[in-house]
């Protein structure tokens, strides 16, 4: 199985799609979570509750929603994105950015509130203050990133629905596992499962090494 080029194409696509989705989630979730944690405005706790609910979004519901949007009959049908890797990325961003946002907010709220006052008192600009807080909270922030990646590399419902599991185009590890199980090839399905876990482990290992190096400083 490991010598099959198709397996590597599928693995690479999984990493590309979920990696890109996690990156986009970080770009959205880090500022949004910071704003939620530090901002003072009406409806903040309501918004927090919405984000926290979003952390548990069922992938298959997200898949259905994105599919309805992207189908030819849907409002964005002209973009011809349905059954492409881009469609999977969109769905996975919706799954993972609430995770990154919610955990970012929690990480920053766990910091001593006096730190912020002290930084501002020392004459830091808002941007400098936020950068310092991110630095201070880098360990839980990396954990947020890992949680976001873990949520999308392992999901199958949305990838199946908006990607279509098309061989050579949108087939990823999780959808291949469903397919091989469906064919009755349980041994290949288990092999792919082990491969998926190994890859997730390696990615998280790399992030943890970065995280713990940060802890020693």
């Amino acid at each position, binding site marked *: 199985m490991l010598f099959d080029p198709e397996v590597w194409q599928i693995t690479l696509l999984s990493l590309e799609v979920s990696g890109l989705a996690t990156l986009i989630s970080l770009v959205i979730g880090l500022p949004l979570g910071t704003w939620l944690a530090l901002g003072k405005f009406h409806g903040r706790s309501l918004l927090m509750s919405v984000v926290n609910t979003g952390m548990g979004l069922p992938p298959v519901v997200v898949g259905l929603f994105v599919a309805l949007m992207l*189908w*030819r009959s849907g409002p964005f049908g002209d973009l011809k994105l*349905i059954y492409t890797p881009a469609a999977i990325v969109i769905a996975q961003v919706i799954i993972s950015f609430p995770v990154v946002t919610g955990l970012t907010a929690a990480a920053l709220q766990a910091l001593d509130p006096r730190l912020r006052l002290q930084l501002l008192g020392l004459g830091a600009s808002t941007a400098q203050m936020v950068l310092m807080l991110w630095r201070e909270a880098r360990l839980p922030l990396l954990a947020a990133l890992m949680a976001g990646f873990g949520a999308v590399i392992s999901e199958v419902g949305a990838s199946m629905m908006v990607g*279509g599991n*098309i061989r*050579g185009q949108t087939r990823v590890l999780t959808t291949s596992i469903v397919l091989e199980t*469906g*064919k*009755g090839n*349980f041994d290949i399905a288990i092999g792919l499962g082990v491969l998926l876990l190994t890859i997730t482990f390696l990615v998280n290992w790399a992030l943890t090494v970065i995280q713990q190096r940060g802890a020693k400083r």
Partner: protein
Amino acid sequence: MGFEMKKTTIVLLVTLFFLASCSAPSPQHADLLLVSTTSTQDSGLLDALLPAFTNRTGYNIQLVAVGSGQALKIGEQGNADVILLHSPAAEKEFVANGLGIDRRLVMHNDFVIVGPASDPAGIRGKSPVDALKQIYASHATFVSRGDESGTNVKELALWKNAGLDPAGQDWYLETGQGQGATLSIASEKNAYALTDRGTYLAYRANLELDILVEGDPFLLNVYHVITVNPEKWPKVNLEGAKAFADFITSAEGQKIIGEFGVKEYGQPLFIPDAGKTDAELGLP
């Protein structure tokens, strides 16, 4: 008054219990594990057939609907009592290997080739083999199940008959999904696909696909029921499996099959075949 209420409640409960226990005959091993192909579930046939079976016999059916490939594997490992599927060649092998017994002809429907109304490859009204040759030559998009299901096996046999191998062509998409999802993808991609007629009719409202090729004897889709061999797997509910096979080949079961879908689609989705031989349907 409180006492009266209580009394009424008790009488009611006892009556309900009594009704529940005698409304259907209760066999000894009431649970029956049926593994079936997705096409019978997607079309809704089993929703009509199974409650009638439970009413008649009292067996409680646990239905697992999977592709034919997985259905046979599940049966092979003894995790089913009775199997209903449409891969005649694989079924024969299954029985020949001593994994299944009592294989009976149940019904058939047929496969059709569907595609966009514009028909870019010009296959309308052609024979199945000629249609595939046209699709191959014009590089029109074709969506395959690619999941070793009965439909997929049929499709690959058609390609083989046409002397062509579409694997790896960039216009040949393999979804690895059920018939419904595969048809949706074909519709979105303006592509051709082979499908059983039942699933196509059930999904037609949401598809922009027309039937372009039909009526060839090679496109028959024949269903058999097989009991998993209890000599190999003693836990198999043999009585239940036999009751199920008896029921769907009985006059009552066959009537349900023959009438299913007529009201909704104006034509039956399945043609009952109990009592006929494989040869009469043109099977080897």
